């Protein structure tokens, strides 16, 4: 076994896991607090990537673009909440799903009209474009380290926000008792809008961070949103801790499965059989894990307390 490759893939898995967490945390916040199923969350991730790409060209600096793009993503999220989500809170999940499915079509097509069908590559500043050599042939792109650092910092910030701030207290209270929070004199509408905006910023941030690696492209939101769903199902919908652990788990398993499953299969079957079956199984791996988790624990690994 190639330990250098193993190490690099472990870092890639961590990176994917943290990006998934950024997307899934917003999804789980919005669902846990607002009881709203937002399929269009992935479109906010995509828009984050496109806006960041355009701003990088306009401002000439990726980091600057990222800083400007974040509040824009938040505003977009707030807009979606006002126009689509708010009238639908009182409805059932089916209406949420269909309504936000409509939002996906609208936002994806708008992105197509504005940015065209091809993906947009995002150039990095030189200091981020290098590699950090760890000795021998082992080197890590410095940008990936930045993604990992940003992901961990955001996760820490979210835990602090939810557990130790007044906003977090309201968020947790609002989840269990809307009328009580409203009776405290808190503008519940504003609170919900803020939660939505926060979720949009987190998803947008994930899109901005991945754009320099994969390009900003039209379908990108729709492929990550399903994986993010798997994350919050496995973690337990509404649980921040569950989303974090499940995101890292899924990110790691997915990355490792794609690189090493044929080696593992090779231990128990013929090389050709391993080579043909490994891609199919690794493509399904996270869904198989989800099925197993749900078969054993229908509420996910960390179900939030009974509301």
């Amino acid at each position: 076994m190639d330990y250098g490759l193993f190490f690099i893939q472990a870092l890639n898995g961590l990176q994917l896991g943290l990006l998934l967490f950024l997307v899934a945390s917003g999804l789980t916040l919005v669902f846990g607090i607002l009881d709203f199923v937002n399929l269009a969350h992935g479109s906010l991730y995509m828009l984050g990537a496109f806006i960041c790409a355009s701003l990088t060209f306009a401002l000439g600096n990726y980091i600057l673009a990222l800083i400007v793009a974040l509040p824009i993503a938040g505003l977009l999220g707030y807009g979606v909440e006002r126009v689509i989500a708010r009238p639908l809170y009182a409805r059932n999940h089916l209406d949420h799903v269909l309504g936000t499915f409509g939002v996906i079509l609208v936002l994806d097509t708008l992105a197509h009209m504005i940015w065209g069908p091809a993906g947009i590559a995002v150039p990095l500043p030189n200091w981020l474009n290098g590699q950090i050599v760890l000795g021998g042939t082992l080197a890590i792109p410095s940008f990936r380290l930045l993604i990992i650092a940003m992901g961990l910092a955001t996760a820490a910030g979210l835990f602090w926000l939810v557990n130790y701030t007044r906003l977090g207290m309201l968020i947790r209270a609002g989840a269990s008792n809307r009328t009580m929070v409203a009776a405290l004199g808190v503008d519940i509408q504003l609170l919900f809008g803020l939660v939505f905006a926060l979720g949009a910023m987190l998803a947008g941030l994930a899109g901005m961070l991945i754009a320099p690696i994969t390009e900003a492209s039209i379908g990108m939101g729709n492929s990550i949103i399903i994986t993010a769903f798997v994350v919050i199902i496995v973690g337990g919908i509404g649980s921040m801790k569950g989303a974090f652990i499940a995101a890292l788990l899924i990110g790691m398993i997915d990355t490792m499965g794609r690189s090493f499953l044929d080696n593992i299969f090779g231990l128990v079957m013929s090389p050709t059989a391993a080579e043909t079956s490994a891609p199919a199984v690794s493509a399904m791996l996270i869904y198989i894990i989800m099925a197993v988790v749900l078969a054993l624990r229908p509420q996910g690994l960390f179900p939030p307390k009974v509301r």
Partner: protein
Amino acid sequence: MALRHWITLAVLVLLAVMPPVFIWMGNPFYVDLATRLVILGIAATSLNLILGYGGLISFGHAAFVGIGAYAVGIPAYHMLYGGGEAVASFNGMFQIPLAVAVSALFALITGAICLRTKGVYFIMITMAFAQMVYYFFISIEEYGADDGLVIDMRSQLPFIELDEPLQLYFFCYASLIAALLIVRTIANSRFGMVLQGAKGNNERMVTLGYNTYLYKLTAYVISGAMAGYAGALLGNFTTFISPEMMDWSRSGELMFMVILGGAATTLGPLMGSAVFIIIEEVLSNYTIYWHLPFGLMLIAVVLFARGGLMGVIGRGRDGK
């Protein structure tokens, strides 16, 4: 007869009469359109059984359609190009039952897991299972991966020549009538009453002594099998299959058809499919950005047109 009965009759007669007229007028393109409509109508009708009558918000119904289509495509591929002796030996007579059996089996296995969950978990897990099938076929190089697979030979059936557009159409049309009758009969049966009762109030039904899990699972399997059948027809119609058929937006479109037409009504899903085909056809001729007005329409329907078309036409609940 109530208004909706007249509309039902009119729609079904129109669907029987128009395609031959199109051929006679030298407009075979419209026969293709009608065939697609009828096949989507079957798929949407099958979804209506669990979504409309059962209240099960399945967001992965396109997977069954895709599985059905691959069950036609894969044997056909092996018959023509060798390999896969096990499936190649199936002749066309077996392809459609194979499609039904495989999708029913998939529904049984995934349904058994999905139905242990409730609410939003159910929505997401059905969607995730569909995605699993999608990625499964994307990773199989032999069947074209994400490029898909051309079916060079349609299912060979006795008495019917599926290569003949009008015969293919009427085969699909007869299937649609059967699907409508099956779902309607099931919905009004004792089984259907339990299913609808569990949709309205699951706890009450359990308290009465119904093992609602088994009833829902049965409905899920019937629905999946019917969708697989529709998929087999779709494969025969398009003679091309690809994982894209199972993309989750396809599942979303099927849900849209059911809701737009009117969930838990006999004809609603077919009407919804008709509207969908018309929108797609008209708008996509007009602009490549047709998903934009379509998305806006979807939002508008969700926000303002509750009960769907059949709801607008008159209290169209069946059996009353």
